[in-house]
């Protein structure tokens, strides 16, 4: 794979060059006084940070319903965020035309809930910090794709700590050719290797009910999920989660019930609905005020369901989402 080796400060220069145009924006990370956070830059970069070791939310969430023409947005985000962006493009929630998505090698992140002050923000120090898998979020320790190999281009880090920019699409090539230096053959072995395969997810309803006992049905998990994009969610109405009179009618018909009602219904249905598009970023768990291990379930289930169709969410723009396509000759053992 051909790419360009980046000298220090080269990315910032290129982005600043890009931002000189009034119609251009960059979505990336900003070093603030209390850690790193997402920032939409206009005009010029300011305290720019290439990596963000603290996970608060998935930035693809902010891109939903982006259809504008004539301006350009450059995304400099983590692979999970770019993968969610790719899924949203396929779900026609984002117009791909005006977006250049660059995924950056991710070392793993810590949760924003337990903000640790000692987390470094420099890429070279992060390798040491995240050497031990226990120091990162669980979602990151079992991440399927931490390499920046998705989107239009990727920023990769090789074993000696040098940065590479590798284009994957035409748009990416335009971007990379604007950077100083010659195209070279990028090393095949990068610092961040392919993720190991995780075990097949298996659980029973007893464990499920125990884990979700604490749920208060605030639906933060739904609202913060980057790929849970429906404007008119099935849980907004009375059909699935009855309130008031409808609830009383239901109880008169079926018997006493625990409140809040419908936890298992809500989570199981949502689990199915995002199954093919879930990128396993763990934003749901991050948003949960009750500390329910949501990632374990959503990621586990989605990996199994994607496995049925040998699909991986966010891997490429060309693979259609399995539920919207079919082959005539497949799934012979689906029916009983």
């Amino acid at each position, binding site marked *: 794979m051909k790419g360009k080796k980046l000298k220090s400060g080269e990315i910032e220069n290129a982005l600043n060059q890009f931002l000189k145009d009034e119609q251009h924006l960059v979505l990336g990370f900003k070093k603030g006084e209390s850690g790193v956070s997402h920032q939409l830059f206009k005009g010029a970069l300011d305290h720019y940070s290439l990596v963000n070791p603290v996970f608060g939310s998935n930035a693809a969430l902010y891109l939903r319903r982006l259809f504008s023409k004539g301006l350009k947005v450059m995304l400099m985000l983590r692979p999970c965020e770019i993968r969610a962006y790719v899924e949203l493009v396929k779900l026609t929630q984002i117009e791909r035309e005006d977006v250049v998505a660059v995924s950056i090698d991710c070392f793993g992140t810590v949760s924003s809930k337990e903000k640790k002050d000692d987390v470094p923000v420099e890429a070279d120090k992060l390798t040491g910090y995240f050497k031990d898998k226990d120091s990162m979020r669980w979602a990151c320790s079992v991440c399927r794709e931490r390499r920046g190999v998705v989107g239009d281009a990727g920023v990769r880090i090789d074993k000696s700590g040098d940065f590479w920019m590798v284009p994957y699409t035409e748009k990416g090539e335009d971007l990379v050719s604007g950077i100083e230096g010659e195209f070279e053959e990028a090393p095949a072995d990068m610092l961040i290797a392919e993720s190991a395969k995780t075990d097949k997810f298996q659980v029973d309803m007893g464990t499920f009910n125990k884990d979700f006992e604490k749920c208060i049905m605030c639906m933060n998990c739904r609202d913060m999920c980057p790929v849970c994009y429906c404007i008119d969610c099935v849980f907004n109405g009375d059909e699935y989660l009855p309130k008031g009179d409808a609830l009383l009618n239901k109880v008169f018909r079926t018997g006493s019930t625990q409140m809040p009602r*419908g936890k298992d219904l809500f989570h199981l249905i949502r689990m199915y609905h995002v199954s093919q598009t879930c990128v396993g970023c763990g934003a749901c768990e991050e948003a949960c005020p009750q500390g329910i291990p949501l990632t374990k379930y959503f990621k586990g289930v989605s990996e199994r369901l994607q496995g049925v169709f040998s699909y991986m969410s966010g891997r490429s723009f060309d693979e259609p989402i399995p539920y919207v396509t079919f082959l*005539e000759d497949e799934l012979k053992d689906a029916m009983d």
Partner: protein
Amino acid sequence: MPEETGNKNPEIVGFCCSYCTFKASEMAGSLRMKYPEGIKVIEVPCSSRVDPAFIIKAIVEGADGVFVSGCHPGDCHFIKGNFYTRRKIAALKEMFDAFSMKDKLRLFWVSASEARRFIDKVTTFYNDIKEKNNEREKA
């Protein structure tokens, strides 16, 4: 159906495509064939109308089993509806498998003339569920 005392009869919800399986169930009725009372058939315009959310809702709200049934692949009135159904239900089965309740969901194809096949399929499903419930009660 003679009721066996002591055992709770399972309730099964079936989503049937109105062009094939529902017609087959009507034909079974007019031929005076019998299938268990516990089976509640719901008519849907096409088997692909069934959002897996319906199935999950039925199970969470107390159904012992759910089946989805439509025309044979290639025979769909809407040309390709049941191919989508097949994908959706295959994925849902995998999910139920992950939660160790795979036996609660079935998918089968029954065309409008196959009344006997319809009876066969639903009765086996009913008996299997009943057997499982009895085993669970004993344990």
